[in-house]
């Protein structure tokens, strides 16, 4: 084994012995995602960099996250994923529906709330309309049956009256 390798092994063992004890000195809180991204982009100020580095040095999971995120090579995403994700924001295009003006913007959340609250009301109204139509159709059907019965009854009487008399009468 070369001298350099031996020194490396000794140094690695030294760090293994020391790291957990060093980590017990402080619990670093996780910086926000934007600070982490800024670190990877090299846009963080020295204080911010020191904060992120302290966090990475104190936790395996933190360092794992940053090492995994440091390269951003994209991969083709499945079409099903894209379609599903695009469907997460649905309905009418709110961006074109909204009108400008400070007052309109002030009351815009109220409009959204009403839109949300009125959606179930819309479904209820549709269900009521269907029920009404069904009842109407049933009543019409029932009325129609009675009419037909009455007409049939009248026709029956007229036909009976117009029929020739019984064979007994004819023979007599």
């Amino acid at each position: 084994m070369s001298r350099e390798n031996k020194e490396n092994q000794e140094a690695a063992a030294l760090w293994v012995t020391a790291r957990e004890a060093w980590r017990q000195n402080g619990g670093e809180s996780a910086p926000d995602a934007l600070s982490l991204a800024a670190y990877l982009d090299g846009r963080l100020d020295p204080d911010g960099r020191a904060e992120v580095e302290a966090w990475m040095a104190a936790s395996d999971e933190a360092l794992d996250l940053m090492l995994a995120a440091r390269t951003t090579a994209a991969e083709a995403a499945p079409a099903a994923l894209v379609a599903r994700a695009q469907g997460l924001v649905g309905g009418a295009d709110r961006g074109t529906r909204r009108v400008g003006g400070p007052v309109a913007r002030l009351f815009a959340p109220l409009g959204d709330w009403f839109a949300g609250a009125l959606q179930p009301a819309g479904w209820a109204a549709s269900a009521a309309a269907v029920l009404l139509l069904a009842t109407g159709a049933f009543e019409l059907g029932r009325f129609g049956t009675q009419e037909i019965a009455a007409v049939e009854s009248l026709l029956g009487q007229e036909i009976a009256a117009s029929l020739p008399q019984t064979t007994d009468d004819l023979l007599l």
Partner: protein
Amino acid sequence: MSDDFDDDLGPLLAGSKAAWSRFVARYAPVIFAGVRRKLVPAGRADDAEDVAQDVFLRLCRRDFHLLRGYDPARARLTTWLTIIATSTAIDHLRRQKAGSQPLDSVPEALLAVDPPKEPIKVVIPPDLLSPRQALVLELLYRREMEVSEAAEFLGIEAQTVRSMHHKALTRLRAHFAAEKSSDSAPAAGDDGGHGRV
């Protein structure tokens, strides 16, 4: 990749479905890659689509609350999305690990614990190593990075990494040597607050 949306997330945040659809089509590959980078080595590649969907859900829920926190002046959108995707994947793996196997289904033999050995407690004074020095040692010895690779990750010169590495090891060696000498001189009866307890 240039970030088309960096300068104008306005229409998307105003609720434009068309803008959201364009955003998803543009950044799904970035998010999917970020998620897979954590899930594939853990043997959970099949979960990638669902976890990526979860990332999009996080971005748009509560009226795009998370996305509104993004600031193009501070970081690139692709980098920020990669951080969000990677952390979502880590959370997913943590949840899977926690709920993967009920304790009752584990054979008792596997739950057996070796009798505890006498722990050797090491105390390192907080100011012995700076976080950056500790990070350099971690990258070189635990993550087995080359000096140049560690330098690139930390955004500093390779020579600075070598210098920090050297100083950190010198301090550790001196600390442990002092501990050893205080241990071998019991008559002193004082380790100065540092050393084995």
